[in-house]
């Protein structure tokens, strides 16, 4: 009897796995890839072969070898160790920006969707913000504050907010007219409850998708800021700062730029693959609007 129960269970689970692999191969690839990068970053102290910030002038610009997996940078620091430590900062920035811009965008979008007067004012401001190229706004915001992880997260998140606002607003506008909202209102659900219980859940699916794309582009933006010499101070290893320090020696020592760039590109790719997969899974109609 136990065999009879076990057999279908086993086949059911293996069927699901193969179904997922067949249906969303790139999504699975993205998940595995991102998990690997997160693990590398989490266990950086164990995996790193050198101290990521220790300067060793005697070992400047060593090409990749067994001792220096990805070579060494112009200060004799180990690029491999800096890359896996840098992953911590880049992932933190990505997640931080996604969380911050989604929270701000959700709040502003809800208000805009429910209040006509606020809508007119807020959407004009959002239009103005969207007219400024995102990187330029982030660059300008970083320029007026002391760069740190927190300020960089804020500077990158602000230009992302309008897009989230537009998304939330469009969802709210379409839901506002639904009969069940009317019903909830008539049955005496008060305003905050109405928003949280009946409107918010509808925004979650598109927001998760949007958040993954924001996360990917934020990781790139952080690297661009550091590359331009404006990001997180170079004493903290981030992918962008490693690349920025290799910028002037790129013809001599391409490895300083190459390896962090590959990690950066791969991470962004994995997150984008996850975002595409989520979009297809959660709501196929979104494929057209995002």
């Amino acid at each position, binding site marked *: 009897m136990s065999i009879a129960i076990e057999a279908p269970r086993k086949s059911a689970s293996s069927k699901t796995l193969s179904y997922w692999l067949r249906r969303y191969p*790139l999504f699975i690839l993205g998940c595995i890839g991102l998990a690997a990068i997160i693990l590398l970053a989490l266990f950086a102290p164990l995996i790193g072969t050198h101290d990521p910030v220790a300067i060793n002038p005697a070992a400047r610009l060593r090409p990749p070898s067994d001792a220096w997996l990805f070579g060494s940078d112009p200060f004799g620091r180990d690029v491999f160790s800096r890359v896996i430590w840098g992953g911590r900062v880049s992932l933190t920035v990505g997640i931080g920006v996604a969380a911050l811009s989604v929270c701000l965008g959700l709040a502003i979008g809800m208000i805009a969707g429910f209040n006509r007067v606020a809508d007119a004012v807020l959407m*004009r*401001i959002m*239009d*103005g*913000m*969207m*007219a*400024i*190229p*995102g*990187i*330029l*706004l982030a*660059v*300008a*915001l970083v*320029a*007026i*504050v002391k760069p740190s992880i927190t300020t960089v997260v804020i500077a990158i998140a602000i230009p992302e907010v309008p897009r989230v606002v537009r998304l939330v607003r469009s969802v709210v506008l379409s839901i506002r007219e639904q009969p069940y909202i009317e019903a909830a209102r008539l049955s005496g659900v008060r305003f905050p409850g109405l928003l949280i219980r009946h409107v918010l859940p509808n925004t979650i699916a598109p927001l998760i998708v949007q958040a993954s794309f924001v996360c*990917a582009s934020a990781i*790139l933006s952080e*690297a*661009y800021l550091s*590359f*331009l*010499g*404006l990001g997180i101070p170079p004493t903290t290893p981030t992918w962008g700062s490693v*690349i920025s320090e290799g*910028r002037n020696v*790129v*013809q001599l020592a*391409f490895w300083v*730029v*190459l390896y962090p*760039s*590959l990690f*950066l*590109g791969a991470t*962004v*790719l994995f997150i*984008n*693959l996850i975002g*595409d997969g989520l979009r297809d899974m959660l709501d196929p109609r979104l*494929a*057209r609007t995002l």
Partner: protein
Amino acid sequence: MLAYILKRLLATIPVMATVAVIVFMLLHLTPGDPAALIGGDLATPEDLRRIREQLGLERPIAEQFLGWLWQVLQGDLGTSLFNQMPVSQLIAQRIEPTLIIGLTIMTFAVIVAIPLGVIAAWKAGSWIDQLIMTLAVIAFSMPIFLIGYLLIFKFSVELKWFPVRGYQPMSAGPAKFFPHIVLPSLTVSFIYIALLTRMTRATVLDVLNQDYMRTARAKGMATPRILAVHALKNAAVPIVTMVGIGLSSLLGGIVVTETVFAIPGMGRLMIDAIIRRDFPILQGVILVLSALYVLINLLIDLSYSLFDPRIRY
């Protein structure tokens, strides 16, 4: 038509006004004294006084804003704090490479991306669609400097087809000018092409599911003609809109590319200004690039009637 153009022109005013407020507030939102921020750690009280005077920081903020706005409307973007040159003149010197590279990318990307997107939509689900879409998501994810440096290594260092870095103005003649813009344009194109290909595929796919497509097929129309005449024409408006919206990431990409290729464009002007804490230049560059973005999107908006005769103004 004229009334519509006027209406659209008026609609850009609140947008540009918001941009102006944001750009103006940048300096004044700083925690602490803007003069100290500009002067840096080594500024003497005398320096700070001079900076305050030049920027008029002692006046009430509303007065400062209106004064600044009035100047900007007259085309005066202020004076560089570093070398006392008018910002508008500095921008005029640097705008050529940024504009030329931007236009080259737009043209090239449209030529490449639209056919790719149409093919992907037409063959949706096939290996060729999957290949195009996979390449698009990869191109979309690659950091600009990685693409730039790889291109430099292959085509400048190894094959010596193009110069490694630098820029020659158009006035130097096409033989000198052209090689300098090829690689920088190509670098940013990847991302823009990826963006447009994804958008084209999605909209064309939508159109292909319409009833009139079945009719066109049923009456024996050849596939290329169906795609070119019926599908693309109906998908044109969303695609063209995307060309405009994508301009924002394109301009950001050019800023990074200018650093990779050491091109003296507006992006480089702005980054150098930030390093020297030269805020009038920073404000001027953002204002001009945003105005450019708004203007091009306005033109795109007005062009809709070319693509879709149903749109009458």
